[in-house]
C-alpha cells in the first residue's frame, strides 16, 4: 500500500483512502470470521467507528495498515469472544454454493479451491486464523507483529503452526 501519511490530508480523508485501499481485505477477513451477513455489516460499522475514533493516531502511525488491521482483528475477536455466539457457525451449503456462484474465476478447479480454502480458514483456531488471514493479505512479518503486538519470532512460529493446521484441514477435507 502506498498511501502517504505525511502530507496535508485531513484524518477523515486519510481514513477513507485507507479503507478504500483495504476494503477487499476487510470484507474477506469478516467473511472468514462471521457467517451471518447482517452481523458482518454490524461488525464493519463497528470497525469504521473504531477507526474514526482513532483517525489521528492512525494517520500518525508508522504502519497505518497494521494499525487498521489491529482494529479489524480486535473488533472481530471481541465479537467472537463475547457471549452472543456460543458456537462457531460453519458456512452452510447455501452460503458455499452462493460463494462459488459469485466467484469470478471460470475454472471449476479454482472455484473448488476457493471453496475449500474459505471452508478451511473458517475452521482454524482463532489465533491461527488471524495470522493466516494477515499473511494472505500480504502483510509482512513486521506488520503482522505490529498488528498482533508480538515479536517477529513469535509471528514466524505462529504462522508456521497455522500453515500446518490449514494444510491438515485441507488435506483431510474436514
Amino acid at each position, binding site marked *: 500500500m502506498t498511501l502517504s501519511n505525511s502530507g496535508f490530508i485531513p484524518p477523515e480523508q486519510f481514513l477513507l483512502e485507507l479503507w478504500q485501499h483495504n476494503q477487499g481485505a476487510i470484507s474477506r477477513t469478516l*467473511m472468514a470470521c462471521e457467517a451471518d451477513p447482517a452481523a458482518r455489516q454490524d461488525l464493519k*460499522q463497528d470497525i469504521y467507528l473504531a477507526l474514526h*475514533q482513532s483517525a489521528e493516531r*492512525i494517520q500518525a502511525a508508522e504502519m497505518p495498515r497494521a494499525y487498521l488491521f489491529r482494529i479489524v482483528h480486535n473488533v472481530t475477536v*471481541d465479537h467472537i*469472544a463475547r457471549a452472543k455466539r456460543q458456537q462457531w457457525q460453519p458456512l452452510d451449503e447455501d452460503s458455499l454454493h452462493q460463494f462459488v456462484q459469485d466467484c469470478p474465476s471460470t475454472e471449476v478447479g479454482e472455484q473448488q*479451491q476457493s471453496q475449500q480454502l474459505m471452508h478451511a480458514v473458517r475452521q482454524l483456531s482463532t*489465533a491461527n486464523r488471524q495470522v493466516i488471514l494477515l499473511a494472505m493479505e500480504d502483510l509482512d512479518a513486521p506488520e503482522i507483529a505490529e498488528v498482533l503486538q*508480538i515479536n517477529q519470532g513469535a509471528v514466524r512460529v505462529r504462522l508456521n503452526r497455522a500453515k500446518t493446521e490449514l494444510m491438515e484441514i485441507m488435506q483431510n477435507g474436514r
Partner: protein
Amino acid sequence: MADNFDFAALTKSWQQHPTSTEALPNIADLAQAKQRQTEQKWLLYGEWLGAVVMFIAACWLAFSIPDWLGYLSAFFLICGALSSAYVAWTVHKPILEYDNWSSSGLIQFRVRACKLTMRYYLYTQLSCGALVVFSGLLWWMQWWNIAQISANLLVFYSLIVAPLSLIASYLLQQKKRKKAAELKQLTRLANDFQSE
C-alpha cells in the same frame, strides 16, 4: 510439514475471493455504530447510577440509624456500591477503545472481567442469603423475646426483603450458569493465543 505447502498459490486464490463492491462507509454507518456504542455506554451509566443509589442509601442509613446495625448496613452497601461501579467499568471499558489492545490482551481482559463478574454474582448471592438469614433472625428474636422487633420491620423483611432476595438469588444463579458457559468459550480462546 508447512514448508511443502504452496502458500503463495493459496494467497493468490484468497485474494481473488469475490467481495461485493460496497460504497465507502458514510455518516449513516457511523450513526448506526455510534448508536450501539451509546447503548453500551447507557448500560454502564445505568449500572453506575445503581451504585450511586446504593451509596446514597448507605449515607442515609449511617446518619438515620447511628448504631452498630446502621453502620454495618452502611458499610455493606458501600462495599456493594464500589464493587458494582468497578465491575461495570471493567465489563464495558474495552468497548470504548479497540486500538490500545492486542487480541490476546483483549481476550485475557475478557476472561478476567468474566471471572470478576462471576465472583460479583456469587457475593451478591451471599448478600441475598444474608438478608434471608437476617429475616429469620428477626423472627427468632421476636419468638424468644430477646429483643422487641416492630411489626412493620417484621412484615417488611418477611414479605418484601426475603422473597425478593430469594428471587434475586435464583436469577443470579441463572446468570452464573450463562457466565460459566461464556468463561469456557473465553478460556478456550485464551488458550489458543497462549499456546506458542
